[in-house]
């Protein structure tokens, strides 16, 4: 991955390696968690594994890049720019991916609301392939360098004067500093607003919600909008942190994030956040202690084991099919 990530090196002691990889896991996990929230919200409300969601995240990265280019940003932002341009690009990127996600739902999923459950899953796979192909044609097959927009400062050394082998940069901090408020805002939205209440009601029982006067289709639209916005934010964070993007990264990240959502308990937002962190840590540790070549196999094994033995995940509720 990118050069700014704290990569463990030979002179580190074992516990320095562990701490370093745990920090890496935290930042990875934050991104997974943001993507996982989109999976879990959509699944909670229409029981669809939105296969294309990972690709919306990938396009979020490229779209945010396009916005930065439009504003002429090519190198690290400074001072006031961090407080104006960066939030602006975040907002625009989130709006774009949110709109994209809503369009995907309208075109590919909405006509199939009453179809068998596997039908929209198949169209979701189709949409995923289309989005990946669009990115491939737009940016080409090679990895794309993402502008290094956020200044990277070695916090321990420069700010605290600690001479440590462990690298914690301002980038690590900003990932958490952006992800956490987004999650809190989502929590407030879902638990404290009318629309959030409509979402929770629709997730529990669509027909009853409809009977109670909730506009179910609008609620689904809002869900896709919010999920797409979070995926866009995750794409920007990913680009800002690793400074690299590639057309197929959405598939990989999407599957890991979906694993996170399932691990946390699909449908549960707290579970998605927790699952994201767990998968972040596990994948970082696996890269270090097993081998990066096996990390995917390990993550998918977790996915399979959870689905088979504890399909409600860590925080989900048991559900039984009605007879």
């Amino acid at each position, binding site marked *: 991955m990118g050069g700014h990530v704290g990569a463990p090196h030979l002179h580190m002691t074992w516990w320095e390696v562990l701490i370093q990889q745990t920090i890496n896991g935290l930042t990875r996990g934050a991104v997974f968690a943001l993507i996982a929230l989109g999976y879990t919200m959509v699944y909670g409300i229409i029981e669809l594994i939105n296969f294309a969601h990972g690709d919306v995240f990938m396009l979020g990265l490229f779209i945010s890049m396009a916005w930065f280019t439009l504003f002429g940003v090519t190198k690290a932002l400074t001072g006031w720019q961090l407080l104006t341009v960066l939030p602006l690009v975040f907002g625009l990127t989130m709006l774009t991916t949110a709109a994209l996600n809503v369009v995907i739902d309208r075109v590919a999923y909405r006509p199939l609301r009453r179809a068998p459950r596997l*039908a929209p*899953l*198949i*169209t979701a796979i*189709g949409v*995923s392939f*289309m989005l990946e192909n669009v990115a491939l044609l737009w940016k080409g097959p090679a990895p794309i360098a993402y502008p290094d927009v956020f200044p990277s400062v070695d916090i321990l050394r420069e700010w605290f004067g600690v001479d440590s082998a462990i690298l914690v940069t301002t980038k690590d901090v900003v990932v958490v500093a952006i992800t956490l408020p987004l999650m809190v805002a989502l929590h407030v939205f879902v638990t404290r607003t009318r629309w959030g209440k409509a979402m929770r009601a629709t997730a529990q029982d669509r027909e009853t919600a409809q009977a109670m006067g909730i506009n179910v289709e609008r609620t689904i639209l809002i869900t896709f909008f919010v999920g797409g916005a979070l995926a866009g934010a995750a794409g920007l964070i990913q680009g800002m942190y690793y400074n690299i993007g590639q057309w197929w990264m959405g598939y990989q990240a999407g599957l890991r994030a979906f694993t996170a959502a399932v691990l946390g308990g699909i449908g549960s937002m707290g579970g998605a956040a927790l699952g994201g962190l767990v998968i972040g840590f596990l994948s970082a540790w696996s890269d270090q202690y097993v081998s990066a070549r096996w990390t995917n196999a390990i993550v998918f094994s977790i996915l399979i084991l959870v689905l*088979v033995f504890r399909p409600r995940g860590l925080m989900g509720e048991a559900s039984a099919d009605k007879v």
Partner: protein
Amino acid sequence: MSRRRGILLVAALLAYPFVDRALGLQTVHAVSDGMIYVLLALGLNIVVGYAGLLDLGYAAFFAIGAYTMGLLNSPVLGSPLYGHAWSFWLCIWVAAAMSALLGVVIGAPTLRVRGDYLAIITLGFGEIIPVAIRNLGDVTIEIGGWRPVERLNLTGGENGVNPVGRPFLPGVPFETDPVPWYFLILVIGVVSLFAMSRLHDSRLGRAWMAIREDETAADCTGVNPISTKLLAFALGASFAGFAGSVYAAKLQAITPGAFEFQVSIMLLCMVVLGGAGSLGGVVLGAMLITVFDRVILSQTTFLVRGLGRAVGMPALAAIDLTLWRWFFFGLGLVLVMLLRPQGLAGRRQRAAPLVDDAEESGAVEAAPPPRVEAIPGWLRERLMAAGDGNAEPVLQVQGLTKRFGGVIALNQVDLVVPRGAIIGLIGPNGAGKTTFFNTVTGLVRPDGGRISFAGASVVGLRPNAIVARGIARTFQSIRLFPHMTVLENVLVGEHCRLGARVAGAVFRPPSVVAEEARARERARALLAFVGLGDKGDDVARNLAYGDQRRLEIARALATEPRLLLLDEPTAGMNPRETETLTDLIGLLRRELALSVLLIEHDMEVVMGISDRITVLDYGTRIAEGTPSEIQRHPRVIEAYLGTGYEQELAAPTAEP
């Protein structure tokens, strides 16, 4: 297909390579490769089309087939089999067996999982297998200082396996000529098609379709969902094993990249485009996609580029449509699902008649009243043979308890069904009546209590095993197999009384032919008995409401039950239909000594027909007795019948 078209098709297939040679087209190689994908799509169709399981990792089985061939029949991995004349012919069977084995290993623990979760699980395996193949090219295991395995090459790693031994037949030039390959793959393909088509039209094919339509209903009709799905998984995998091993030997080289997720999705495109479940459709879909991928995209690119140059548009002149192939596959999946979900060759589903129509037709041609003479002889014989004069009750339930979270759905419920009795089970909505049925039929596990059927406990048995013991049921909201024909619905009921297995279904020995003929005869007799004799070939969902209710009873009777559980059989019926059905139930008890447990809200029906009645309220049995005792029971009147019951009995209202 008409006979003449069939002969023409065979002639074209046989003549094709020679025509190709005469014209110097040199397309046989590409066509043979394409046919391997057709074979793969056909195998996937068993899983997706027949059994309705979305498999997103089917390429993993293709990989196992190819790598089994590579491991056994390549010098790179030091195989002792390499270079022997019989190697290939042995290895394709080993490869198919290995793939099937992997199918069982993957399927056995995971097939309980819901459909969309299963799809993701297969996807996970589809990802894990190539990762494992990539990483097992150089295996060193180190335990302390001891290295039991050092630099072992299991799979050829990223470089793959090259070369792979070719098949050997005296005088046939597999080394130099593509034509023998063409015929080899053609033979495998035709034999596979034959086997699949026979499987489809067998007891097993019906079980797959039933699972696909409604897994719970299939389970409660005597079809074991797990083993049925596992069989589809293993069979589908074995065809991929054949395809993979032939692919490896034909290409002479295999690399992990050939078995990625995209391959699984391309195969899924073929199945979905052609029409999942239809053999002809899948062959068509696979051919269309292969031709599109290999010919149309590249040829169109040339065309567009030429056009671009002629018009002077550099953007068009430089276009490469082959880079768009995954976009088109994705678009294809979306468009097919949106516009023609049944695929190109699939039957367009006829619209179900509107409710009004159904009621009308029910009024116009009401079902004939059941007649004693119409009782199928075979059913009488079988049920009488089963009821060996034993006087002990058919069903004895003691202290049955079921909790859902904090709600006690059943609380220490006792109930006895004597042989040949009709027992009513009544109570307000939410009293636990259907939960009681679900517990007895094995859909729900009780938290306490005993359920003994014909003297043996059935607690902990799967629903299909309980059906095999002799308990059949119907559902409150009718659960037929909606897209299967009326006759097929009844045949699924006979599933657990038939014995044909894979070999029998494919080779059709006389015993299987006779069994199938007998099954159809019995099913027709049953349909005639319930008054659906002329509707055997209709699709079940198109039946009028009352007909659907009676079909569900016919399906239950086909399982040769000794105890029939009917969950609100007259709900939604008009008075005339209700009367016919009541007569039918009475007839079954009188003539066949069939025991019946009946949930019913229509008091006229339940009081008129039941020998004894049990009343539930909030999961607790509040009364038990003869109908007249129940009508006078103060707690029943208070909890359920209401104080105005006498008036209500005079003018019964339909309760939902």
